[in-house]
């Protein structure tokens, strides 16, 4: 073709600035201009960070600062960092704890937590069985009967109902259960051990009950093992299709890459193949019972992650099954697993970019306690960590549930919320790939319009099945109305300018309920309500 491309391999800002302007085709900006812009942006970001360090009591920010900006890639990376101005507004440590340990502040919960104090509240949440949650349990038992069904019963049930009940019970429990930290961890593990309902159908109901909810605040090795014995997981990652001589490596890969040691866990393609051989025979029978089928197990010698699995005599017993159990036990307590789970939990519960020191502490706790999840959370959710942690952006499910919690509607059905979560892009148990819904601000923040419409919709609900009673927000003056909203939705902690703007919207006086509903909708839509 005789085409000559102009290659430009300069990466350093200094070199970039020294490079002559590129006089490319029409409409191409010069590198010089771009680099200057990028450098300026980096300086602005640096300034904001300094301001935050001041705002949190002059203490040096513990968050690792990025390397000095050397090129465009790093500058663009920094531009995605979350803002820190909010930290100056959220001064109450108990408020910080509630934002992270629950799916949204309520006025009642905040009052109760303040009375208990930071440590006692956290300890209570770490022991969910000690929290009386009978009211919610009774509602769930009455309204979502398919949750208790065996695979055989589920098979015979109305499949639409099975799906709806799983989604709506998840929303209901997240919104109303008093075991809030437990519900947060259910959310976390549901992504960690993601299963797309589209592929496994009703089996996700059993996985949710017998794997995720059973062990969400238990021991990680037990959880990993339970997931490996889940019919839904076997089906989802094609383990049911793997057999001696014709392996399917899907589950073997993902249990290492996504569930335990992580993608940098040091395994090779050979390890994946060998683990797939070890796992042959793990499958599903009947309407969804995990089964080991010796007929299709590979009894030959194998080697996974440097561990030899000697050949055994072909047999009908469980010798073949135990091979994989032993490997999974080793994976569960592998040092790389401790590291990987520590990073992931810290990112989910605390901040997008935890420091090495934070992760190391959580990792050490994993090692010390053999993967005790509450113990790790205790290391993550310290007052010191929380007071320095930058804000996180609520995902649609989190946002919807926190809205429900804030508004405190009288509810006999959350189907309206399910519809809104769908509209906002996070249909429950519908993420098709095994990595789970992303927990990244840049992924979700552009879908803001759907969120605003959901806010307006939820604040306008007057149906008997989901009734948001706006009367308590109707104040005597616009200022009082704004105060009531701020107290209920934000634990009282917003910038003064925000309170004023809310009051402005309510002028002359918040007597018209439609107007008050719109104001609440705007408050739920506001930037303030997107953070936690």
């Amino acid at each position, binding site marked *: *073709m005789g*085409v*000559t*491309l102009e*290659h*430009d*391999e300069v990466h350093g800002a200094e070199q970039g600035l020294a490079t002559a302007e*590129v006089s*490319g085709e*029409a*409409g*191409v900006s010069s*590198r010089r201009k*771009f680099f200057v812009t990028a450098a300026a942006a980096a300086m602005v970001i640096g300034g*904001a960070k300094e301001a935050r360090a001041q705002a949190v009591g002059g203490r040096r920010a513990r968050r690792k600062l*990025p*390397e000095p900006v050397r090129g*465009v*890639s*790093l500058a*663009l*990376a920094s531009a*995605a960092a*979350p*803002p820190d*101005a909010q930290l100056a507004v959220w001064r109450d440590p108990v408020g910080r704890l509630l934002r992270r340990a629950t799916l949204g502040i309520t006025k009642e919960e905040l009052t109760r937590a303040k009375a208990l104090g930071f440590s006692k509240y956290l300890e209570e949440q770490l022991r969910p069985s000690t929290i009386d949650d009978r009211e919610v349990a009774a509602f769930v038992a009455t309204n979502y009967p398919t949750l208790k069904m065996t695979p055989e019963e589920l098979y015979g049930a109305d499949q639409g109902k099975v799906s709806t009940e799983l989604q709506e019970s998840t929303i209901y429990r997240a919104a109303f259960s008093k075991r809030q930290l437990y519900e947060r961890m259910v959310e976390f593990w549901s992504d960690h051990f993601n299963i797309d309902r589209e592929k496994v159908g009703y089996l996700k109901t059993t996985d949710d009950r017998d794997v995720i909810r059973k062990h969400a605040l238990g021991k990680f090795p037990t959880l990993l093992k339970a997931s490996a014995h889940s019919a839904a997981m076997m089906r989802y990652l*094609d383990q049911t*299709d*793997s*057999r001696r001589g*014709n*392996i*399917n*490596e*899907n589950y073997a890969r993902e249990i290492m*890459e996504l569930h335990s040691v992580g*993608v940098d866990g040091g395994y090779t*393609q050979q390890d*994946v193949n060998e683990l797939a051989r070890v796992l042959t025979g793990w499958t599903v029978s009947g309407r969804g019972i995990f089964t080991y089928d010796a007929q299709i197990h590979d009894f030959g010698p194998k080697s996974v992650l440097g561990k030899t699995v000697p050949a055994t005599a072909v047999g009908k017993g469980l010798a073949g099954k135990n091979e994989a159990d032993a490997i999974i036990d080793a994976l569960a307590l592998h040092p790389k697993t401790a590291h990987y789970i520590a990073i992931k939990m810290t990112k989910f519960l605390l901040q997008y970019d935890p420091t090495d020191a934070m992760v190391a502490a959580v990792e050490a706790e994993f090692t010390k306690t053999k993967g005790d999840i509450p113990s790790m959370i205790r290391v993550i959710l310290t007052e010191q960590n929380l007071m320095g942690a930058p804000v996180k952006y609520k995902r649609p499910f989190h946002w919807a549930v926190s809205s429900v919690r804030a508004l405190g509607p009288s509810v006999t059905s959350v189907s309206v919320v399910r519809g809104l979560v769908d509209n906002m892009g996070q249909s429950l148990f519908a993420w*098709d*790939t095994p*990595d789970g819904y*992303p927990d990244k*601000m*840049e*992924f979700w923040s*552009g*879908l*803001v*319009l759907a969120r*605003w*419409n959901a806010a*307006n919709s939820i604040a306008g609900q007057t149906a008997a099945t989901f009734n948001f009673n706006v009367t308590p927000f109707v104040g005597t003056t616009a200022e009082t109305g704004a105060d009531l909203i701020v107290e209920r939705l934000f634990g009282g902690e917003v910038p003064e300018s925000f309170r004023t*703007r809310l009051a402005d919207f309510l002028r002359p006086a918040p007597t018209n309920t*439609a107007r008050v509903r*719109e104001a609440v*909708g705007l408050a739920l*839509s506001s*930037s*303030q309500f997107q953070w936690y």
Partner: protein
Amino acid sequence: MSQHVHDTGCEEYNTLTRRAFVGAAAGVAAAATLPAWLPKVVLAQSASSRDIIVSVFLRGGSDGLSMVYPFTDTNYYTGRPTIAIPRPDSNSATRGIALNGQFGISAAMSSLVPAYQAGNLLVVHGAGLVDNTRSHFDAQRFIEVGKARDPNLVSGWLGRHLATSTPMRSNAPLRALGLTQGMPRTLVGAPKSLPIPNPAGFGLGGSTTTRTERSAWLRGDYEAVDTSIGAPALDALNTVTLLNNINFNGYVPSGGAVYPNTGFGRGMRSAAALIKADIGIEALQLDIGGWDTHSGQAPAVVNGNMARTMTDLAQSLAAFHADALTGGVSYNVTVVVLSEFGRNVRENGSQGTDHGRGSCMFVMGPGIAGGRVMTNNWVPLARENLESGQDLRVTIDHRDILSEIVSRRLGNTNLGVIFPSYVPTVRGVTL
């Protein structure tokens, strides 16, 4: 996002906009020539020689050897006893169509043959990532950010292209969008960009009486906050006005094109409408999933698992070709289609294929040197020729293809920024 109606429920708004349009640029005469689905958009302003890019990611690792297959290679047939595409010269009802003496395209993708014959469609085979990861998520990330194993690089290659080029329209409120349920990493870093899963439903709901006031309140709120969430919110507010000018539901494709009524088909249809509306959008990202065919792949079975996905892909691309690239007016557009990796040459125990390496890319457009299957030292798929004894080798780095598109079709020479630490080889993708 369902409440807002742009073509029926908002008369006052439409009237205002129409008046603004007539008063603004093109004038009454131009307005009379506008198609019915596009009543209010300013078509004037200078045309650009730069292409608009439509980038399509096949999520899940697409089996290139089921899309475009080497039918003269007996290794292909011995490695895939149950899932190979029958030879084009066979009698099988599901045989593919020969693209040349060596490669055929699967029957499920036959709708792309006209674009190929017109010289607008290029197949690049044995393409992919040089890094040998077989993790979906690593491979997608490496391709989307444009570099392997660089944790500091979080923006996408297309995002950096937009960040390093002047807008094609200086006043465009939106330069790029993902027709996706979230921001695709490929576009991260792009100024004025949004994920818009359904442009037809893009609007602020609730009472029409208070809409303007609420919109202004939100603008004020987000203007005051950090750009990380402020910028997308303001982009969204600005884009509402823009997209409400387009009646997506009433859009009539040219050239008799019929888009499949699938998520991807509707996405490509919206892409064509947005391009023709000429509102300054220069990059569109679309995703199509369903390629992780570990079992029951069935690429040559009518309505088979992969056959369905391939049909969706091909019919949507073919409709776009007829509609936007050849239908009356040919728009300056380049479409590029790729996946994170291909799949094993030999099928597995469940009539599927596990994660592999090289796959095929498609590049389509009036400026593309198409009508060819581009390869680089293609060899028979015998075990000894395969990577790790099992996979099609990557003999063409995907960045070679993308670099040439960026520099020759998108007019951006900042390749060192867009694909850091890489010196591309010119493969002759463009005319």
